[in-house]
């Protein structure tokens, strides 16, 4: 049996193909990098696609100002290690610039506000394509999105008017002002990502592995205390061994109890767990059934 018949090789081949196609078809692409596992995998795929050449795009991080310090440190470390350009766009600055109102509530999410910084970064740098690590298995609006997803002048996704996408022939031609979001790992599941990380022993921020952390228990979820989230009088505060299954904002990403110390432990954890990735860890997706769809229509990733 040849190498390419293994499903991880097939997924890798598809992703590298898409990355090279993006480089070839666009004038100024960018790779959106969050410091999370999916975008770290994207960087590794880009190394395979373009070395010994340089990346034909910079890494762009939309910094919400509420990120985990571990994720930020890892971001800088990785960009430095591979010697590629990193651009940081700040949500904090867009909040000041546009006088944006922050979400209220105990665990405020800057998810929707990220769109402003993202669209500014696209406009200021004249990016015509942004590569992202979104996967179709994450969420039901994402399950519908094309590999090359066309966005209008306002960055908006129109789910009812998506372009046909035939075979693996990708059409990157867009109207002036429009841009494209590119999703090379669309067809990977959470488990595929972890199996891939294990296969190539890809380095990750230590947030993904079990560590002791002080957390507030909120509706069965564990939210770490931090400079942004302080415990209130009535809160149950626990010190527990936890890990992060996804890495979002400190304010709205929940930790999961875990003793997983190795990638194999994490894989075993995921196989055992019967709750979805976003369902277990994202407080902001549980606001409504169409939360992601609505954010995407506004220009979100």
């Amino acid at each position: 049996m040849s190498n390419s018949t293994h499903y991880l090789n097939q997924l890798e081949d598809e992703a590298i193909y898409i990355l090279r196609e993006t480089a070839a078809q666009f004038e100024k692409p960018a790779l959106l990098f969050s410091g999370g596992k999916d975008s770290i995998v994207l960087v590794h795929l880009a190394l395979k696609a373009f070395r010994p050449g340089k990346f034909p795009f910079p890494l762009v991080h939309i910094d919400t100002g509420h990120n985990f310090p571990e994720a930020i440190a890892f971001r800088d470390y990785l960009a430095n290690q591979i010697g590629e350009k990193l651009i940081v766009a700040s949500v904090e600055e867009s909040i000041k610039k546009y006088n944006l109102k922050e979400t209220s509530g105990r665990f405020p999410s800057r998810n929707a506000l990220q769109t402003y910084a993202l669209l500014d970064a696209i406009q200021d740098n004249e990016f015509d394509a942004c590569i992202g690590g979104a996967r179709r298995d994450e969420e039901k609006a994402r399950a519908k999105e094309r590999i090359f997803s066309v966005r209008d002048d306002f960055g908006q996704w129109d789910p009812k008017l998506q372009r046909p996408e035939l075979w693996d022939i990708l059409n990157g031609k867009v109207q002036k002002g429009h841009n494209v979001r590119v999703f090379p790992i669309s067809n990977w599941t959470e488990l595929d990502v972890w199996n891939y990380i294990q296969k190539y022993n890809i380095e990750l921020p230590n947030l993904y592995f079990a560590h002791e952390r002080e957390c507030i228990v909120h509706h069965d979820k564990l939210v770490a205390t931090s400079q942004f989230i302080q415990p209130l009088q009535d809160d149950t505060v626990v010190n527990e061994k936890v890990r992060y299954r996804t890495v979002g904002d400190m304010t709205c990403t929940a930790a999961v109890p875990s003793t997983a110390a190795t990638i194999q432990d994490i894989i075993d954890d995921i196989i055992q767990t019967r709750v979805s990735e976003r369902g277990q860890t994202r407080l902001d997706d549980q606001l409504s059934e169409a939360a992601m769809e609505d954010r995407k229509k506004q220009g979100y990733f």
Partner: protein
Amino acid sequence: MNTLRFITAGNVDDGKSTLIGRLLYDSDSIHTDQLGLLEKQTKQEGVTIDLSLITDGLRAEREQGITIDVAYKYFSTKNRKFIIADAPGHEQYTRNMITGASNSDLIIILVDARKGITTQTKRHASIGSLIGIKKAIIAVNKIDLVEYSEVVFDAIKADFENLKSNLNFDEIVYIPISALEGDNIVDKSTKTPWFEGDTLLETLEYIEVPSSENLASRFQAQWVIRPKDEENHDYRGYAGQVLSGSYQEGDKVKILPSGIETTISKIEKHQQTITKAVAGENVVLHLSENIDISRGDSIVKIDELPITSNDLKTWVSWLDNTALQIGKTYILQHRFRKVRVKIQSIDKKWDSNEWQFSKANGIGLNDIGQISLKSNQPLFFDAFTDNSKSGNAILIDETTHNTVGALLFLA
């Protein structure tokens, strides 16, 4: 463990969503939080979970209770990873179904046992076959509603067998199922003792996906790697995917369009030297001479040349609201090579309802037909029946940049 991509097609009420829900549910692929949500949404009395609710993703789809665009769903068994393209059944959204079909290895066509073969069945079969799917499962659903009748099943099978000569499928499997009751989905049903074939899941797990490794070798330069730094001063490699066949170090090759002949001096994969690259692999080819090669140029073996022509005859599946216009210039994208083409004539139109060609009085949205085109530069291709990787292309509108047509080259 390899991957099987399949699409499910059927009439609006043929139980497509229930079938997908059943496959995901029985393979333990639905997360508990999603199940909780489904229990909340299930309104039917006496039913704990409405499996059909699993699939529809967009607000508008839930509101109208229909599927508008393809949703991709994933599950695996110990033998295979599956990617399901859950495609709309409505004719209005055919182009979205074509998107899903074009990336599938297999099509499951659901037929309601009470209704038999319908116009929709024929339309979906035509599209699936034309777009390049080689394997089909005709799932005769709701078999419980016809008292698990062998006679009904056999009649539907015979009807579809009559359509076969106009289809390019190389294997068709017939299975009597009830998506709602779970008959012959995962386990063999005791209610259809007359059925000797495999269940739906068994078929999906073991059906062979044709490999393009044994076809003529095709490669187009996708991206040229030229670092020009000190360390790699003379490095010049042509990155791309082996579309079909295989390449080895030392192969004598011809570059098209230049016609120059040379030899493959080295093959790299992820910066490691390999001796042989096969279909599907992303590699970097190095040639023994320094030749000017651009994106979209073909590198083919000297004894396996493709068809070279400016005069093209193709099948077309039209995807745009604006009809195809004779005399108008479009962009044709054949993998990485783009040329300008002019439509010369519409030659035939396929009427999937009548199951025959009809008079060609225009090709509009959702129509299938055969056309003649002329390109400003030659193309290097194969007939789609010989090579599904180099036998297709897309047509792009020059002003809107929309993908307006799917093309399949005829010999």
